């Protein structure tokens, strides 16, 4: 019996393959990409448990067990960098995640095409500016005699270097992130919005629903699955903050709020070529992210119909 069902399954697969061979051909490239560039290099994570030396190679470097993890946990900066990483992400999700949704919804309500296109282009542009340049602009604007202080001084606020104030770092970091990414992030929502059936709006108008009610009862539910999926994916990087922007903006005065896992590992690991240490922290990071991703997905599945799988 087992053999029979097995054969039947093989047959189904065969006919399916014959029928859709071009699709299989196309997908094979993607699968190959993943195997070659995402799975095979994964064996490299073993250096997290070794004392990796570039000269000896991955396989010949000596094993050290959990040493790198231990040295991270007993590091006096451990709690601070974990907290900062987590908080910056929480703020980014709180403020940064809804921003492009709101922009997309606003744009959806705009009737003037020229205005809409202009706003879209203006909000996309910052995304294409190199992060080094963006940070240069931020440092300039926030300096003691920079643009922001010049403006604030008209309202009687004393001029200070804003980036030297640890209480403002997260605001500046998340705020500039929103400015840079809002236009780009709204594209996917704008695409989702075009999928909403226009007849629903007509029906709602006949029923007497105003634009606000339409927004609440048609537009938002229409893109809710996109929002949920993106939120779940965003949760999957809750312990990650790229080090580039951090190291360009922080200074010893703001370490208290700005030093995150990746920037600390950068100073500790990369500048000293301590790749094993960086890998160990990266692995730890991925593990935590993975659990957050699973958790968010599980919650979403339980309370809404949306989930990744």
């Amino acid at each position: 019996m087992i053999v029979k069902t097995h054969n039947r399954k093989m047959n189904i697969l065969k006919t399916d393959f014959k029928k859709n061979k071009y699709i299989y051909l196309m997908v094979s490239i993607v699968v190959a990409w993943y195997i070659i560039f995402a799975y095979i290099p994964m064996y490299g994570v073993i250096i997290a448990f070794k004392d990796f030396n570039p000269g000896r190679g991955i396989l010949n470097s000596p094993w050290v067990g959990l040493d790198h993890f231990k040295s991270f946990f007993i590091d006096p900066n451990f709690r601070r960098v974990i907290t900062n990483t987590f908080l910056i992400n929480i703020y980014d999700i709180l403020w940064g995640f809804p921003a492009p949704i709101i922009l997309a919804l606003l744009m959806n309500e705009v009737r003037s095409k020229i205005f809409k296109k202009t706003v879209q282009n203006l909000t996309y542009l910052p995304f294409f500016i190199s992060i080094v340049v963006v940070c240069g602009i931020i440092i300039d604007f926030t300096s003691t005699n920079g643009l922001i202080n010049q403006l604030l001084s008209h309202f009687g606020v004393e001029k200070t270097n804003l980036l030297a104030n640890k209480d403002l770092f997260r605001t500046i970091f998340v705020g500039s992130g929103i400015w840079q990414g809002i236009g780009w992030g709204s594209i996917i929502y704008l695409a989702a919005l075009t999928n909403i059936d226009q007849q629903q709006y007509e029906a709602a108008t006949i029923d007497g629903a105003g634009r606000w009610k339409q927004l609440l009862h048609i537009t938002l539910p229409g893109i809710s699955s996109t929002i949920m999926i993106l939120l779940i994916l965003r949760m999957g990087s809750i312990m990650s903050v790229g080090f580039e922007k951090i190291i360009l903006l922080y200074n010893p005065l703001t370490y208290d709020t700005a030093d995150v896992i990746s920037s600390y590992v950068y100073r500790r690991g990369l500048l000293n070529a301590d790749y094993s240490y960086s890998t160990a922290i990266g692995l730890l990071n991925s593990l935590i992210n993975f659990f957050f991703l699973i958790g968010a997905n599980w919650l979403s599945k339980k309370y809404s119909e949306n989930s990744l799988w």
Partner: protein
Amino acid sequence: MKKMKKLGLPLSSGILVASMVLSLAACGSNTNNSENTSDNAPNTPDGTATTGAGSLADFAKFQGTKLTYWHPFSSTYIKSINDNMVVQEMEKRTGIKVDYITPPSGQESDAFNLMIASGELPDIIPDQGYKGGGLKAVQDGVYLKLNDLIPKYAPNYAAVLAQNPDFAKQAKEDDGTIWSFKMLQTDEEPSWAGPAIRKDYLDELGLQVPKTIDDWTNVLKALKDKKKLETPMLLQLKSKFGAAEAFAGTFGSSYSQFLNKNGTVVYGPIEPGFKDFLTLMNQWYKEGLIDKDFATRDDTSADAQVTSGKAGAVAVAFYGSFGPWATSGKATNPDYNLVPTTYPVLKEGDDPAKTIHVGNKNWYSKGSDIAISAKSKNVEAALRWLDYRYSAEGFMLFNYGVEGVSYNWVDGPVEQKDGSGFFPPALSERIKTQHPEFTDLLTKNPDGVDFWTAIDKYKSLYEAYLRNPLSYVMAPEVYDAMDKWSTPEKDYNMPPLSSTDEEVKVNAEVMTQINTYREEMVYKFIMGEEPIDDFDQYVAQIKKMGIDKMIKITQDQLERYNNR
């Protein structure tokens, strides 16, 4: 298979033809060059002894040999290393074709580690900080140990090392291993960094150039109150020359370094004097005498502060900056005049040479190590090719470029300010009556670039060779600066030490924590977020983080160095 064979034939024959052409070209130019050298020969009667061994004749068997050389490079003037005249001339003279591999600019150390990890090594590797040090690289079988090879294939390098026991001491590891060619300077290079101030502002206010810390306070106050300057003094703590060192040094401490106080190693930032330094900086910050934005000031905006006239003084300036700063400064203010000052002293009448201990002592070996891959198949060629830069001819080529193109010998001896002490013995007679002079290609470049940009094309790139650090066209301020900044004689700086693998590990673990904490606290002390009274707690915390372990390691390293 058939197809491949068909393709294979023309390809290989192409290579054959190409290599034939190359070797022909190499031969052709080589004959040219031997004429050149024989031209020079009568002028260097003494030179034959040292230049004879390991000179161009030894390259005859390497015509057409190919070497690979991983080489960081960035220039605003030339597009690739191959446009550099010294590189081109080396190929002509030796017949060795060097294939340069250029890592992306700004990511050199990442690219270096990736290259080492890949196991595919070029013949010649300029070390960018092999993990665990060069000695470890030799043990790991990555770099070649050069001790036995240098006498055989690098007679010029061997001769330079033999000139002075200190050269050899600084060119090898504690156990005597030599794994690299180093940038060597056969005399003491003058200091290249120190404080500077706007003399024109001082004249306007009727003030003298400050000497003591009190002078500085008065001058900076005047610059702020009377001259209404935004930034009386720039204090670029982020810059790589450690801008706080000139003033921290006055108090016998240092912002970040270990100091060698008469053979005893101490950590500068926990020395008692450092507290006095912090107190002063905190006072200056409160009164608005130092840059309000010092915490976020990067090099570019620091330059802008100086040239726009917003800054009245610079805590530590690099002497190469005087020229470019003056050019843009004078464009907006013809009176612009930034002058170097001596390192500040505590009391009137103190001798700067006795009070200041963190100067900028320059050792004979300036590092910039170039190693040879242990896997290289052309060891002899690589050694001889590198050795050439330590011969008299190589010295002239790498420091001055090609004769008749970038420099000419003209009458008049080489003066001390032009580095007469750095010339190899083979040229010692000649430089009594003649000196090399850069041509208009460098001094009045037809492309309109300044000297410091033009050298990218006409002089050697900054790497290991026998270097004359004064073989540059420098503004009068620079010579003035060298005089004034070089006064600290008794110097607390560490010699070039080498670490064991274990020491490197401790360093990574301990120093990352300490540096993070130290920087944070120093910034807070200066800005007044942390009261200076907490200095003792700060010292205690750094001790708790294991500074004593690091002081012990550094002491060991110093002793090993002294025993070399």
